[in-house]
């Protein structure tokens, strides 16, 4: 390990790429712990939107079962939009983003760290609460498991695509609306395959193609979006 002596004479060790990745995640989770309201907003929004449908549509079991995957996915999509604005804006306003750009490691890796933290705070809670909400729609157990699986694959994609939008609209007035306009159309494939898998299991067909396509989308996003987001951040900082 490289060692570096510094101004105080103390010896510090050099941080590796993964050390930095972990640091960014830990930092974002710690900040979220100190600002719990932000995390809860997304979750409460998701629960409210999904719960309103059975009340509004009426207690017809067949119809509820049919619309459940679509409702849950659309609500998840909208809920993930809510927290996108905060992804980089706080760091932008207090100057931390400048320091991130000056980190002697790959900016893409830092961005990936921020995306992972964002997903853990806004995507993962939705995945965990979704089965409970699914019960309101009388979804069978098998469909609930599939719903968890596709949400687990799909919500990280929403965070990754959202990161690009958030980085591009950084520092713009009315960026929140713009980010939705940019990001929502790109999320349509996730919505189609996500709901498709749950519908497939309801009609007794195989879910494999839907899940495989979602997995492919996830890998594709994992490779490209951190890099694109990093470039967008550099443009926004000029």
């Amino acid at each position, binding site marked *: 390990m490289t060692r*570096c002596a*510094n101004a*105080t004479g*103390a010896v*510090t060790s050099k941080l590796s790429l993964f050390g930095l990745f972990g640091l960014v995640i830990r930092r974002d989770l710690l900040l979220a712990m100190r*600002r719990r309201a932000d995390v809860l907003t997304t979750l409460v929004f998701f629960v409210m939107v999904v719960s309103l449908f059975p009340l509004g549509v009426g207690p017809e079991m067949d119809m509820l079962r049919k619309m459940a995957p679509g409702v849950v996915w659309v609500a998840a999509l909208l809920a993930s939009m809510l927290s996108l604005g905060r992804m980089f804006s706080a760091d932008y306003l207090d100057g931390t983003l400048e320091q991130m750009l000056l*980190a002697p490691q790959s900016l893409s890796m830092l961005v990936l760290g921020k995306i992972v933290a964002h997903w853990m705070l806004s995507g993962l809670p939705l995945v965990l609460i979704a089965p409970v909400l699914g019960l309101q729609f009388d979804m069978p157990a098998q469909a609930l498991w599939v719903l968890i699986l596709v949400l687990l694959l799909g919500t990280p994609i929403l965070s990754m695509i959202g990161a690009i939008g958030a980085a591009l609209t950084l520092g713009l007035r009315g960026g929140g609306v713009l980010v939705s306009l940019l990001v929502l159309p790109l999320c349509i494939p996730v919505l189609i395959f996500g709901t498709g898998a749950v519908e497939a299991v309801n009609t007794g067909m195989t879910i494999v193609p839907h899940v495989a396509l979602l997995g492919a989308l996830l890998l594709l996003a994992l490779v490209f979006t951190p890099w694109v987001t990093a470039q967008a951040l*550099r443009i926004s900082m000029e």
Partner: protein
Amino acid sequence: MLEVSNLACARGDHQLFSGLSFSLEAGELMQVQGENGSGKTSLLRTLCGFMQPIAGEIRWRGQNIHELDESYYAEMVYLGHLNAIKDELNALENLHISAGLSGCAVDEQAALSALRRMGLRRREHLPVKVLSQGQRRRVALSRLLVGNAHLWILDEPLTALDVGAVGLMQELIGEHLSKGGMVIFTTHQPLQVAGVQTRQLVLS
């Protein structure tokens, strides 16, 4: 070490300066002067690589900084108008994070001694939001103490600092220069480092 040749910068359509050339060697201190809006901050941000110059080149150890990229960033530290500290975190956590972002993992003891040197004794575990502006600036400045950068780029480092802290900054800069470091800074306050000639760069 740091060479700037024929640099020109613009903000939108407005050209700030052009044909700027200078070089900075180990142990040298340079103050950038100019009126408000003359492009001091833009020059420093260009040196950091945030802004692309419209003409000219910046070289570090003979190589263009855009080619060096990460290995240049490992040798420099930038302190801007913004403190880059989080209100919700305490001084110690903030220092750990900013040191981490600059590529160094500091242990608890080194971080504490850096904060104490900056006059933040017994403030280490308070959330930064309860500190005064001057104390926040001190938290941000403590980053200089834990890094191992050769080049310090400081944009108005003395804002909100009291007389004692300004003296401390002069001392820190002096130590850094005596170890072969270099400092380029802007300020509207007088800043003299004993035994070192401050080079002036005037933007008009």
